[in-house]
């Protein structure tokens, strides 16, 4: 029972702080009754599920966004150079007497 209380307290902190826990807190009947630590975290249930869904919903990490932004910046740069190429082509055509 003490194990369950401690585990739920940990979940509550994760949920209210809005941060993603380094590893999902484990809450299960198995751990409560046996008192052993599972080798791999079992699935979270109840209030803990809500906390995890919230964390996932806001979990577009900075690295991913940076990667996307980098791609977009490269595309912007390419487009700017394409504009310059178009301008050079336009200049030649505009001055054309053949």
């Amino acid at each position: 029972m003490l194990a369950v209380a401690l585990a739920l307290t940990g979940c509550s902190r994760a949920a209210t702080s809005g941060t993603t826990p380094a590893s999902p807190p484990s809450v299960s009947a198995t751990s409560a009754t046996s008192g052993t630590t599972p080798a791999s975290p079992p699935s979270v249930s109840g209030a803990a599920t809500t906390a995890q869904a919230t964390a996932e919903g806001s979990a577009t990490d900075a690295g991913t966004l940076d990667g996307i932004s980098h791609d977009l910046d490269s595309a912007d740069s390419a487009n700017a150079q394409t504009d310059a190429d178009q301008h050079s082509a336009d200049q030649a055509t505009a001055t054309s007497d053949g």
Partner: protein
Amino acid sequence: MKRIATMAAVGTAVCALSLATSLPAFAAGTPTVDAHSTLAQIQAAASTATSDRITSLKTAIGKLDTNTSLASGDRATVLARFNADVTAMGSVESKIAADTTVATALSDYHDIFTGYRVYAVALPQAFEAAAGDRLTATAIPKLRSAHDKLAADLAAHPTKWTDAMKAQLNDMASKIADASGHANGLAARALAVTPAQYNANKTVITAIRTDLKTAVGDTKAAAADGHALVTALK
């Protein structure tokens, strides 16, 4: 009515003046010659026309040496063409300088324009090819990469994505596909245009230019979609 006509005439004159003043000096300074011109006048006009083209081609060669847009094969094609045109302009100028009749000189003079189309074909097609290569080699692949990462984020975090964001991602995909459709093969099409084709149909370049502008517009729109989605996800 007369006043309107007068204003229109003034407006046209102003526009014509604006256009004329926006053109480089060589265009305005190229002497016009015809069958009534003297041999000396034709030779002088030919000297101006060929030296203008040689200068423009050499400037373009300098630009393309540092232009990272062009694929290596296209760069080789363009530089070979430019260098050949530089040599040809020198040869034509020398030939006209040695011509002894107005008829021959005039025929050779016209060849400066119709035989090479330096300004109408050679120079624009090189930069159109560079733009096309830049789109297909860099802009579109980078946009696809950004789109795929955004799509992966949508799959991983669906609750984070509103319907408007999903629609914007679809628009991004649509714009990328459209850009790709217009840009694929554009460089090859541009470089395939010959002076003879242009002489027969002056719109041959126009269609390529239209596709290029559409592709550029699409890639810019797709990039704008991507930037907006990144902002929404932050």
